[in-house]
């Protein structure tokens, strides 16, 4: 990512119930030296706890998780009214228009459907910080 708007390291919290996918997503993100995953969580509750300890610039999270799923997590995070707000990109297995619209209506700034390449994920992140 070489956007002029992105000069510093973007710190990311990655949230997914699968440890495997967290590792895979972290690998994709770290292929860009301007991006780093500084914290991970396996569900929405743990993500909220991590956010109380670590300030991040962006959250990338899955939709389907136990206990507190991705949509409920987004709603809870928005209710916290953090300043500045932390943008959230949701990763979904189902990329139907209705599913994407549903995710965005909960307050996610963007949504990316699996499967995606590292380049597509980085481009999605770049767009968030270019606006």
């Amino acid at each position, binding site marked *: 990512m070489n956007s002029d708007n992105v000069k510093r390291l973007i710190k990311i919290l990655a949230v997914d119930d*699968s*440890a495997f996918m967290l590792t*895979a997503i972290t690998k994709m993100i770290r292929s860009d030296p301007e991006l780093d995953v500084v914290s991970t969580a396996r569900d929405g509750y743990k993500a909220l706890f991590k956010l109380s300890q670590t300030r991040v610039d962006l959250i990338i999270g899955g939709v389907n998780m136990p206990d507190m799923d991705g949509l409920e997590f987004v709603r809870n995070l928005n209710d916290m009214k953090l300043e500045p707000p932390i943008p959230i990109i949701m990763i979904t*297995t*189902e990329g*139907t228009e209705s599913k994407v619209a549903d995710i965005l209506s909960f307050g996610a700034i963007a949504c990316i459907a699996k*499967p995606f390449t590292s380049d597509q994920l980085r481009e999605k992140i770049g767009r968030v910080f270019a606006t």
Partner: protein
Amino acid sequence: MNPTILKDLVDSTLEVFSKMVAIQLAPNPELRPEEDVQKCQITGMIGLAGKSMGIVSVHCSPRMGMTITSNMLGMDVTTLNDDVKDAVGEVTNMVAGNFKTKMSKNGKLFDLSVPTVIVGEKYTTKTMTDAPSVVIEFQWQEEKLYVKLNLKT
């Protein structure tokens, strides 16, 4: 089975492997017999439930499973460990999710279950006997991977 459904399943599989696993699979245009999947030692399965119902499953050898895992994690995986089971489960999840997206262009047809992964040397699976079933073979180097669809519409 409707050729459009088969095309959606083939395209879904090719996209997942190309984008997430960095493997270019080559589909065999001929459908394969059920017995072929029984040679495999790893199976990932996802249930479909709704207006349409059935099962999408992905079948591969331990070597193919380890290659999928290595590519997704960016590290050499040389044993059939939990990461391999997770990788095959995740690939099955993505194939089924992508297939659902393509199938749902004209309305939602089904929801997906969570994936189940089976590993072993001798097992058979049995699904709904009154629903059409197809097995599609994909080739990558010397390895074969099978995607099976059992679908009642």
